[in-house]
């Protein structure tokens, strides 16, 4: 399978934050959800992918090309959506289009007007008067109007009402039909991902924890619930982290089959949500530091 994005051994450090030896790949033709807590490095990673930041060390390649020699070529093929308004505020959407259109070789006016109509966007109203939802629709319209092969979005669903979030996910789903496009988006609303993502990439504190297919996560990870008497030095080692209470314990394992063998009928084994995985991974990390 072809990789659209490849990060290899990427290091980037700022004051009080660093990405450490981050390596990850994003597959062509799929939707990859990018999760991690606040400050995990999601936005930094996305900025590195867009060449808004350069890595201190390591290589980044998009469509198999590097930014040093092929910057414009790569950006021609990317559509981007950020969670804040990155457009000029005092212009209308029609003027914004006029500004952006000449930058893209493959700009398609029909497509642009199709989305403007679908999203019911006003062409002649100043962008600063747009609501958060309209802003997102406008960004998306611009991102989708030049036949981009890769759509990168930073928190596109944050601040949107539930009904529009569903609408957005449907639009993204429709985009994926031809199998040529790739979508990479970060979110902390993990419920969005169950609906649309094929892969999940999880980072924590600047480190890549995993990239897995969504069904694979269900097969490998499990939440184990049981009485506290089941825990001892050996069994505790099976878990990424454990939450103990007076009534018993709840813990996350990355090896469901093994957990099933060990605890058998004595404990309850449940399917974890992505939130569970994020929560326990974070907890586990704190425990071992």
């Amino acid at each position: 399978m072809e990789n659209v994005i490849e990060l290899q051994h990427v290091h980037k450090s700022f004051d009080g934050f660093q990405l450490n030896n981050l390596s990850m790949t994003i597959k062509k033709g799929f939707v990859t959800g990018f999760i991690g807590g606040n400050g995990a490095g999601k936005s930094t990673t996305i900025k590195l992918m867009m060449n808004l930041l350069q890595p201190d060390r390591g290589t980044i390649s998009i469509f198999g090309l590097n930014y040093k020699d092929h910057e414009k070529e790569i950006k021609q093929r990317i559509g981007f959506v950020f969670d804040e308004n990155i457009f000029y505020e005092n212009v209308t959407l029609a003027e914004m289009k006029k500004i952006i259109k000449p930058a893209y070789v493959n700009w398609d006016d029909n497509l642009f007007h199709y989305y403007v109509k679908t999203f019911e966007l006003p062409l002649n109203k100043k962008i600063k008067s747009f609501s958060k939802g309209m802003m997102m629709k406008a960004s998306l319209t611009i991102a989708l109007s030049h036949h981009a092969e890769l759509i990168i979005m930073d928190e596109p669903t944050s601040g949107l009402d539930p009904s529009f979030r569903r609408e957005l996910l449907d639009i993204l789903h429709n985009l994926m039909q031809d199998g040529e496009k790739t979508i990479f988006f970060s979110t902390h609303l993990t419920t969005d991902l169950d609906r649309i993502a094929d892969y999940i990439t999880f980072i924590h504190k600047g480190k890549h924890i995993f990239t897995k297919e969504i069904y694979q996560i269900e097969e490998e990870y499990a939440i184990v619930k049981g009485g506290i008497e089941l825990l001892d030095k050996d069994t505790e080692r099976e878990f990424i982290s454990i939450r103990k209470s007076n009534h018993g314990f709840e813990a996350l394992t990355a090896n469901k089959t093994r957990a099933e063998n060990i605890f058998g009928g004595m404990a309850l084994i449940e399917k974890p949500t992505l939130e569970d995985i994020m929560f326990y991974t974070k907890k586990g990390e704190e425990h071992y530091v």
Partner: protein
Amino acid sequence: MFNLIRKDIVLHKKTLMILLPILLVYLLLGTSSIWVGIVFCIAIIMGVFSSDEKSTIHILLNSLPYTRKQIVSSKYIGVFLFTFIVVFTIFIGNLMIHREIIPWEDLLFIFGIVMVLTALAFPFSYKFKSQYLLVASLVLFAIYMIIVNLFIKNLNDRIREFVQALLNLQSHQLYLSIGFSVIALYVCSWLLSIRIYKNKVF
């Protein structure tokens, strides 16, 4: 890259529409066309520059298929375009209002001063922000006033005389060497700005 310059024109069309007639009013009042020309050029150029200074706009421009080199260069080339627009308006305005043709030395002088000023202002603004430019120029102005008041009382007159003398000089060699120095300064500033902008984090 010319798309980036076109973008600046689209964004500032309205400002230009307002400023250029005002420029004509000044000419009508008989204000020194060199002085008015320089002030208008700098006002327009820095206005255009500051509208791209928000970090979100940097993110936009850098996410579009442009390189950082092009983004900086578009501003440096834009200076010529906007200066040309102002100079052209002055030229036409003078022709219509006063029925006289402005000497080409005056027009070149406007170009030269605008180039020198932007060559100083752009790298400073890329490094810090253009809003600090006002502070910096106020500091410079204070220093200038102190010099005028304490040391060289007739500095203003001397500068005026110097400019007049310069414009009346017929020595082409001198013009040429001043011209080359201005261009050299401009090119150095251009390269410096590209360097500063390459390392910028938004």
